[in-house]
């Protein structure tokens, strides 16, 4: 007998604190993905303020991002990703240098192997990245890196996966916790199940990390345009008076980061927040999760 069923399991995001651990790895395609209007910068700062060692893996060379031509963009974006991640207290950046926006046809298993190698080297307790199951993400690099990440986090724990790594003294390591982000305005693809509360200090770091990417954000032309539009309506923003277009652009972008952090906070009953899909350590064993929760004891 077939019984059709419909039920809604989804609930409002729950507050998640930092899981136990000490190493964070952020797996992303681009220089600026560590801090966007849909997440990460505040959470990364939360980890590093708590003493975690944090690494950024940038899979592409970012040659398309910016108005300076391929090679220059590549160089500027690398410099700015070092600056941005430094604002967040991260320890270092690995650039895999796959060609920006040309990642769809690259071998998935090769990219995955690079991530597995770095996971085995640093043994992160948490990986942050794009949601591999996000819908409508039209950026090929986001999709590709997320898909490689989805498997790398658990396959790094299997001794029959790239056993050549063990010649270097590395050992299998399965990543127990994952935070995934994606735009929530892209259809029904990504629905957050968790929010993390941010402090004022973490939001300030997020702002600084965001505007470190002057090659793509905080454009003086944007500030000029905003001011012209306001002027046409007889309006001004007092805080921007006397500032150069570049200074005004930085302020506007910082307000944007502040606004989105407040918005996510208000939606979840706190002052500042970011929202994620959070995967707990035994989520991949749904049949055992309840039993483990009830029967695991301290040593």
């Amino acid at each position: 007998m077939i019984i059709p069923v419909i039920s809604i399991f989804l609930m409002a995001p729950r507050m998640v604190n930092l899981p136990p651990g000490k190493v964070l790895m952020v797996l992303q395609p681009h220089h600026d993905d560590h801090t966007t209007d849909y997440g990460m910068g505040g959470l990364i700062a939360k980890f590093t303020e708590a003493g975690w060692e944090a690494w950024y893996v940038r899979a592409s060379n970012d040659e398309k991002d910016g108005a300076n031509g391929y090679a220059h963009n590549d160089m500027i974006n690398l410099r700015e990703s070092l600056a941005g991640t430094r604002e967040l207290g991260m320890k270092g950046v690995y650039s895999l240098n796959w060609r920006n926006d040309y990642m769809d046809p690259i071998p998935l298993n090769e990219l995955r192997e690079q991530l597995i190698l770095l996971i085995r080297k640093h043994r992160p307790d948490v990986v942050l990245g794009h949601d591999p199951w996000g819908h409508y993400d039209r950026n090929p690099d986001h999709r590709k890196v997320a898909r490689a990440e989805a498997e790398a986090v658990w396959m790094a724990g299997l001794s029959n996966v790239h056993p050549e790594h063990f010649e270097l003294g590395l050992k299998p390591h399965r990543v127990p916790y994952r935070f995934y982000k994606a735009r929530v305005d892209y259809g029904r693809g990504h629905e957050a199940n968790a929010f993390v509360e941010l402090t004022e200090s973490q939001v300030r770091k997020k702002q600084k990390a965001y505007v470190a990417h002057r090659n793509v954000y905080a454009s003086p032309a944007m500030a000029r345009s905003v001011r012209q539009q306001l002027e046409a309506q007889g309006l001004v923003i007092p805080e921007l008076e006397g500032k150069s277009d570049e200074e005004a652009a930085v302020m506007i972008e910082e307000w944007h980061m502040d606004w989105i952090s407040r918005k996510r906070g208000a939606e979840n009953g706190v002052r500042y927040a970011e929202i994620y899909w959070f995967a707990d350590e035994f989520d991949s064993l749904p049949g055992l999760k309840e039993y483990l929760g009830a029967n695991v004891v301290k040593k």
Partner: protein
Amino acid sequence: MRMLALFLLLAAGLWAKTILIVAADAPDFVLAAGGAVAAMIEAGDRAILVRVTNEDKDSYGLTAEETALRSRAECEQAAGILGIGKVVHLGYRAGELGGVSPTEIRDRILFQVRLHKPDVMFIPNPYAEYVEQLDRHYVGMAAEEARRAAALGNHQPPHEAVGLKTHHTPELYYYAQPVDPRRREPESTATFVPQPVVKDIARTFAKKVRAAQALKTSNHAMAMRVRERLEATGRRLPLLDTVDDASVAKLAELNVAGLAKIGAADSPYRMAEEFHYAGKDFQVPEKLRAK
């Protein structure tokens, strides 16, 4: 009386369905669909399992070759417990399907569809979210496509030369272990698309447990991974203080029981499995059905 028994036997044979199960790996199929398939077999249907990967990665302390060998034997044992009559091993290396042509996988499954002419297919749900083993996604995509392509004569024309006719499979079950929080949501209100269903597995639960326990290599790896994770964080699970055949079998049973409980949520059943089901009306618009 004898004639009646003979008639009933013949009738059962005529009405029996052929089920083709496509799986990336044995644990996924057994845990997500083993109970429902066993129930259909107990009711008289016959089943064939197409196992796409060789499962050479999922072990603890064994080489890939030894893992593949053991997993194959254990898969056949589990299939036998569920009553599956035949297992076809396609032999792709586990975890590597992201580097294999989807069309190649599709066409190998398509061959099996035309060979066995199933009435029902069980395939991994490629749209299930947060299923970390992407082999299951790739196999689901390939199998879904194979079901369609097997009915179209312009796919694999050489098949006709060897007597393989086109075949349409009228019923389709998409299975996945319950990690997708939106799995109970209907895909849409359209009549075309598979809808969520649950199937009672209380009668075949014990059989499913035994089939799951037969997958000793992957169960042992699961137990060791859980134990290592707990040890690394200053915790322990008393059941796994000693990891041996008995404790691993118990863990497998608990896993099946936990999954059955999740599957039965919001249903009239005590133990169940969840699917997306596309029945005979699949792809027939409602306005045309009356005609």
